[in-house]
């Protein structure tokens, strides 16, 4: 389906290319230039914010692959993040292991957890699967808490900034580029995965499992692979999250974190990579937007203590609004707008999927 008026694919190379049409390439180049130039002009606050977006994007992409494409509901996302963070913290505290040990180790533990907690998905569907992943979250967090209290790190574990060879990632600008790199790698990985054999198999399983099996998709294998892929990406993001914050503590890995990630893919629009990006930006920026709105409206000081509760309620409300009124998410709004302008000023029937 053409993204622009008068653009049709005439060769296989065009069909396979990641960037279609010249305008898109131009925009992509401009966007990359802007992303590279951003840290040199942005304030430290904005820098921190964008690093948070990149970090969250990795986790959100993982959840999108698992839930949006493979159709396996997971409410244990914070558990995978906690697993990555705790593996990093424990290896750092016990063996003072460097980044190039902790990062693969987190990935490995994530993979193991993915297999163990993906196994129920072979038998269970829907609600049951959601509750079994929820159980995983509580069990992982319990082990983390137990480690903290046994080793007397009751207030949390402090992690030193990571070093790769002689370079130490410490200042915000370096962090920005490292996280940007990781996010872009995760993004390209996800895009390519989704349009490859595995991605098509996942979509088939999501849409109709019995038919997928009938046309020769190995359902068990691909369900497990979806869990493992999602879990590895998430735990790696958990490991980076631990290093970026420099601090690991149970309080950070609540059920609310899972819900935030789920909200990202819902608000963005299930089954869309672009939607994941939009949703991640939306959810990460939401609390800060509410804060800024509060300041702009000169909310009296005695009410600022309610700010957190305000953010909480607004978050729930926005999720409800999207679920009830725009189940396709932000990307559906974007697609409608784009379709309107493709042949502007002429109307055309909207087509193209979200």
């Amino acid at each position, binding site marked *: 389906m053409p993204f622009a008026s008068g653009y049709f694919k005439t060769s296989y190379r065009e069909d396979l290319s990641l960037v279609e049409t010249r305008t898109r390439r131009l925009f992509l180049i401009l966007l990359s230039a802007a992303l590279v130039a951003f840290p040199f002009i942005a304030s430290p606050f904005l820098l921190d914010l964008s690093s948070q977006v990149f970090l969250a994007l990795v986790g959100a992409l993982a959840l999108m692959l698992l839930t949006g494409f493979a159709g396996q509901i997971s409410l244990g996302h914070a558990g995978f993040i906690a697993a990555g963070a705790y593996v990093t913290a424990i290896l750092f505290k016990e063996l003072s292991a460097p980044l190039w040990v902790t990062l693969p180790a987190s990935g490995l533990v994530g993979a193991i957890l993915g297999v163990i907690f993906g196994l129920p998905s072979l038998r269970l569907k829907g609600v049951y699967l959601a509750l079994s992943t929820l*159980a995983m979250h509580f069990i992982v967090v319990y082990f983390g808490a137990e480690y903290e209290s046994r080793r007397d790190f009751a207030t949390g574990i402090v992690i030193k900034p990571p070093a790769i060879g002689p370079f130490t990632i410490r200042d915000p600008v370096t962090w920005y580029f490292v996280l940007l790199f990781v996010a872009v790698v995760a993004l390209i990985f996800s895009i390519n995965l989704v349009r490859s054999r595995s991605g098509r198999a996942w979509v088939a399983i999501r849409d109709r499992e019995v038919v997928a099996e009938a046309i020769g998709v190995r359902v068990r294998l691909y369900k497990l692979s979806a869990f493992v892929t999602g879990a590895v990406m998430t735990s790696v993001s958990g490991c980076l999250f631990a290093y970026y914050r420099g601090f690991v503590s149970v309080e950070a890995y609540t059920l609310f974190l899972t819900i935030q990630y789920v909200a990202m893919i819902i608000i963005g629009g299930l089954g869309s990579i672009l939607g994941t990006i939009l949703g991640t930006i939306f959810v990460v920026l939401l609390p800060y937007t509410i804060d800024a709105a509060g300041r702009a409206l000169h909310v009296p000081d005695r009410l600022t203590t309610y700010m957190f*509760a305000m953010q909480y309620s607004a978050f729930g409300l926005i999720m409800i609004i999207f679920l009830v009124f725009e189940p396709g998410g932000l990307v559906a709004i974007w697609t409608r707008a784009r379709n309107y302008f493709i042949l502007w000023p002429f109307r055309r029937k909207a087509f193209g999927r979200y």
Partner: protein
Amino acid sequence: MQIIVNTLVLASMYSLIGCGFVMIYRTSRVVNLAQGELMAMGGYFLFTVVLALFKDPLPSFLVASIFSLGLGFMVYFFLMRFLTGESIFAAILTTIALGILLRGLITLIWTSQLRHPLEKMGIANNSHALIGDAVVSTFGIVTLVSAFCLYLGLFLCLKFTRVGLRMRAVGENPLLASRRGIRLHNYYALSWGIAAFTGGLAGMIQSCDAILEPGMVAIGLKTFPVVLVGGLDSLAGIIPGALIVAMAEAVAINYISPQASEAAPFVVLLIMLLVRPWGLFGTKEELERV
């Protein structure tokens, strides 16, 4: 002996909360992840009623229960009605979002301070000695008794009344039921009302027995293992489920560590999902339906 008493009290608390969960699930196949928040709302309603209207326990409990019931109806008519017939995933997520919204509202309206409605009522929560130097608090007994009465009432109502029969019909086959002239929306709303009422009752008792604070929603989370062990669609299954989970929790507290008691119900849940995913008393077909 003390462990047994604690287990019994905790189990009846769980069965109070879990009962609403199963009622909603049986009638509309929606898994309500906001049950903990509905419970906390009950506690806060009680607190408000005690502050504003009556000091006596009985009328204040009654009025707060009516508020809870109304909250349940409102949740259905203003929110869940739009999701009837949508995918189950969307419905679950909406209940999660509802939970977040309610928790935010609780903190906005009542702040996150610790509250003691019992002190405001001016009655004490005495401990009573039982055989074998076990003790139980007054509201522990209240929990047990109200769970018992509630189950008896629900059982009689579902089995022998017109409304109960229709409710079961709606749960069994919504299409046929609606063809037969049963108003689905009213019965779905009723199930939400009952859920909010039973959850709210649990919240009221809990807020009297211990304290009232937004963190009490965590108890609601532990009811998922309870209903899953018993079987999602089985009202009778909640009681053994609650006993098993409460026992696991009591054992974990006494023999491992207090932290382990947070995870123990979920270990039970995982074991159950591996061995018998449809629960002790649930129907196997349920696995395919959701």
